[in-house]
């Protein structure tokens, strides 16, 4: 009470004291021009946050074109990705391009083509490869290095591109296709989404394992490791870069119904039974959204089985896809559910993504049964929820939910853990099934921590993930659904929402096929020679097949080994002799083996042992892994002595539909060659300050902040107040004399 009185007293006192100084002070500020500042017209440029490491030397990034050839055989896709690095400058350049691949892709071959010459890459242990690359780069030899940063993010460095020169880098990878609800699907990611790291702000490339001291890596080499940020091309200033051409040959191995793409216009020509040739309609498309393709096999009375094998040395690798019978429709669950929806509304969801997410949830809310209970949690930097705990899906509650959805905008970072905890902590009532439906683009980089959380807190709940937008981090989504024993569905755009949500609800509403087991006929005999993935088959939701990949001794072919699959009263057998030979199966197995090894880290396997095991697999199967890289170097020196080498990053396109300002700070973009050249010709005063030019050696992590407001309505009040007083005075002055004169006249 005392304090309040004091406050009031002080207020009135200070009001009198401050009246004068403030109003005179404000007049002063007008002529004090703030230090270190250019005119307002320059402001836009002056906001660039990167400096050049060498003042006065600015170089445009090398331009890139991409050609993709995909060869689909059954359930395996083999893709050749050709990238052209063009150097439009008069300098010798090093180009670095970060490219995404499907999350289950295994990169096994690379070559660089310079004019007529082809240099094949070899697989090498990562640090050794990095060292050899740096050495080649320094000595002026042409070199290329492919490294893996995350399961689905790779980078490609090409050194010593001659002035005006062109280098093609050809990458080859193998991928197993997805089959779900009667459709095969293939996705080719064409952009890397800028990811949000709760510890370190926006980070475009994901954490690179920077070796610590004592790992035997010389300090100068460590300093030369690629910077962790990729420049983002400012799509508000220039048309998309990086044109892509894509050709696909499809040999499904079964009669086909339809072939379609949800993301791009395609031309499909029929080249035989189950064979198609697919090209992109627009011939070249910008690399700003993932390419997807679907094909539906013709339904037959036979259960769907697709199995392939590849013999390499003493091993035979087998992959099999077996469709279990669909559960009876009347077996639809009647158990009431608690559904918790989690909506990611971070800045990376801006644009098309948040619209798609909102309509997906709208559709989900419409599908709820009155006996269900639900809640809606949304998060960015902060987490809030519709209800404090799950509430019955009454009409009123659904309406609330829809209103809540409608005013959800995409801003801020992605801090996912509190939302996840909130969803998994609210304990469901006895006898209720809890399903958590997570709608996100997965643009996070603390994935391991999140997976661990899901494992630890899941209990009897099931976690389903819905991937939204032009380039969701499907590695995260798939693994999260796996850890959450649920399923993952990908919605590329608003038009797809309805169809995909129906698929998703098919899964949510039907019972899963559980307790599936498998065995090879000679299991016991060659235990050490045989290994299959997944070790345990997860719960199967409606429309999903059993997918297995095994390594067997080559002798198994002659022995006529067979595979038995069973669950409840369902049983299926597959003879090894019935599998068709195909390329790339060994690579698929190696990829699964590496995934299993990485997962064993979470269960406490010793890190060094896992590292050695992964490196060994990488070296034997010629795969790019976290510990092995593909390296190509030329023997002859190309760059003349004395000519310096300049390092540039190739800008990555912003996601389709994403606005530049939503994910990036203003002015962080790096335009194409021309724009950058123009920028480097900025006034010398600007250059001297070093704030106007985009840096080529970029700092580690960016922090993005919303700037607070910083002014009071002081002058508005003052102006209105004085205005009113003035009018009062004028009226008074006008009225009083006129009264006197009229009085005089009356007298």
């Amino acid at each position, binding site marked *: 009470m005392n304090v*309040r009185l004091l*406050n009031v007293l002080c207020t009135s006192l200070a009001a009198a004291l401050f009246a004068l100084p*403030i109003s005179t002070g404000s007049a002063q500020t007008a002529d004090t021009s703030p*230090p270190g500042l250019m005119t307002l017209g320059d402001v836009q440029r002056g906001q660039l946050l990167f400096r050049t490491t060498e003042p006065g030397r600015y170089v445009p990034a090398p331009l890139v074109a991409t050609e993709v050839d995909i060869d689909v055989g059954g359930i395996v896709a083999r893709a050749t990705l050709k990238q052209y690095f063009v150097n439009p400058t008069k300098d010798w350049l090093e180009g670095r391009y970060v490219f995404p691949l499907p999350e289950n892709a295994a990169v096994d071959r690379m070559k660089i083509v310079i004019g007529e010459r082809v240099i094949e890459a070899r697989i090498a242990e990562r640090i050794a490869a990095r060292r050899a690359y740096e050495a080649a780069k320094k000595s002026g030899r042409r070199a290329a290095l492919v490294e893996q940063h995350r399961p689905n993010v790779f980078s490609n460095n090409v050194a010593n591109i001659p002035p005006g020169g062109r280098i093609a880098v050809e990458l080859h990878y193998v991928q197993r296709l997805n089959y779900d609800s009667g459709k095969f699907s293939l996705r080719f990611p064409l952009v890397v989404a800028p990811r949000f790291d709760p510890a370190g702000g926006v980070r475009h490339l994901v954490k690179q394992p920077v070796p610590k001291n004592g790992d035997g890596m010389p300090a100068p080499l460590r300093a030369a490791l690629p910077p962790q940020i990729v420049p983002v091309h400012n799509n508000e200033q220039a048309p998309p870069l990086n044109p892509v051409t894509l050709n696909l040959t499809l040999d499904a191995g079964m009669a086909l119904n339809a072939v379609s793409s949800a993301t791009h216009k395609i031309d499909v020509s029929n080249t035989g039974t189950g064979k198609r040739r697919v090209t992109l309609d627009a011939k070249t498309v910008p690399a700003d959204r993932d390419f997807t393709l679907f094909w539906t096999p013709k339904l037959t009375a036979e259960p769907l089985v697709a199995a392939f094998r590849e013999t390499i040395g003493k091993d035979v690798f087998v992959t099999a896809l077996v469709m279990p019978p669909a559960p009876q429709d009347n077996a639809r669950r009647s158990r009431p559910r608690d559904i918790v929806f989690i909506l990611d509304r971070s800045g990376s969801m801006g644009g098309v993504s948040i619209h798609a997410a909102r309509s997906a949830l709208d559709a989900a809310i419409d599908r709820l049964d009155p006996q269900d209970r639900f809640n809606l949690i949304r998060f960015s930097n902060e987490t809030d929820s519709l209800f404090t705990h799950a509430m019955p899906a009454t009409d009123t509650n659904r309406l609330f939910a829809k209103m809540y959805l409608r005013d959800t905008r995409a801003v801020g970072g992605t801090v996912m853990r509190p939302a996840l905890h909130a969803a998994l902590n609210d304990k469901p009532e006895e006898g209720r099934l809890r399903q958590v439906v997570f709608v996100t683009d997965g643009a996070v980089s603390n994935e391991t921590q999140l997976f661990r959380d899901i494992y630890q807190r899941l209990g009897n709940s099931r976690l389903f993930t819905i991937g939204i937008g032009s380039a969701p981090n499907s590695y995260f989504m798939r693994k999260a659904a796996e850890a959450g024993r649920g399923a993952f569905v990908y919605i590329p755009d608003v038009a797809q929402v309805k169809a995909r949500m129906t698929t998703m609800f098919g899964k949510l509403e039907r019972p899963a096929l559980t307790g599936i087991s498998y065995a090879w006929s000679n299991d016991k005999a060659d235990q050490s020679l045989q290994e299959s993935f997944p070790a345990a088959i997860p719960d199967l939701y409606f429309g999903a097949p059993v997918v297995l990949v095994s390594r067997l001794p080559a002798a198994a072919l002659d022995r006529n080994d067979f595979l038995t699959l069973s669950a409840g009263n369902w049983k299926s057998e597959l003879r090894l002799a019935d599998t068709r030979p195909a390329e790339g199966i060994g690579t698929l197995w190696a990829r699964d083996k590496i995934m299993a090894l990485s997962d064993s880290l979470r269960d406490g396997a010793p890190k060094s042992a896992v590292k050695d095991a992964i490196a060994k697999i990488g070296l034997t199967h010629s795969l790019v892994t976290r510990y092995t890289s593909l390296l190509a170097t030329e023997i002859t020196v190309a760059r003349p002595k004395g000519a310096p080498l300049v390092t540039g990053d190739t800008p990555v396109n912003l996601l389709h539909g994403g606005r530049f300002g939503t994910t990036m700070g203003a002015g962080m973009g790096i335009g194409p060659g021309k724009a950058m050249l123009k920028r480097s010709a900025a006034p010398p005063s600007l250059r001297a300050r070093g704030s106007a030019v985009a840096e080529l050696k970029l700092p580690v992590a960016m922090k993005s902040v919303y700037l607070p*407001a910083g002014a009071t309505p002081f002058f508005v009040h003052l102006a209105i107040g004085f205005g009113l007083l003035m009018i009062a005075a004028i009226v008074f002055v006008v009225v009083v004399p006129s009264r006197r004169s009229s009085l005089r006249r009356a007298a």
Partner: protein
Amino acid sequence: MTRFLSGRTALLAAVLLLAAGGVWQVGSALFIPAKAAVAQILLHRAWDRTLTGEDRVKPWPWADTWPVARLKLPDTGTDLIVLAGTSGQALAFGPGHVGGTAAPGRPGLSMIGGHRDTHLKALARLKPGSRVEIQRPDGATRVYRMESATIADSRRPWAAPEDRDQLVLVTCYPFEALIPGGPLRYLVHAVPLYTADVSSTHQPTGISPTGAPY
């Protein structure tokens, strides 16, 4: 005669009303700097209590914010208590620490925002090389040197390298604008020189090198 009188009364009433409105408006205008100044007096008391180890000291019982640092600009004679958060209510009483950035006086990117026409008016007179001092709740003072000033558009999130140790003071721009709520912000960037211990603000004994862990 009566008609004339009543007209005159009406006019006088209107004049009085206008005058009352004017006084009210001028009053509420003057209330802004007054509140800003008086709150700082109360905040300095709260800060003294914070320095003795109390956490989240509310300067007055119904306050929804608390002091987190003391900001001194020796060149302009500014001495302010920085509040937690940058809600409009908090900013009326003092500059606020922008949530999500490093705590004032701690390594990393730390940002403090304030009104250009009250507390942070002095920013316009700050020049590269000027000292900026931040006293932390533990009593230690981190001394910064102003490096540059930039202008940013607040309609877009502003980004800076996070590993760069800097203090950013933000206020509205242009300084002389009459209407509040414009999109531009004036940013003063300051880099740390050293950190002085509790006992010696002026004689830096317990110096720790810039950027080193504390």
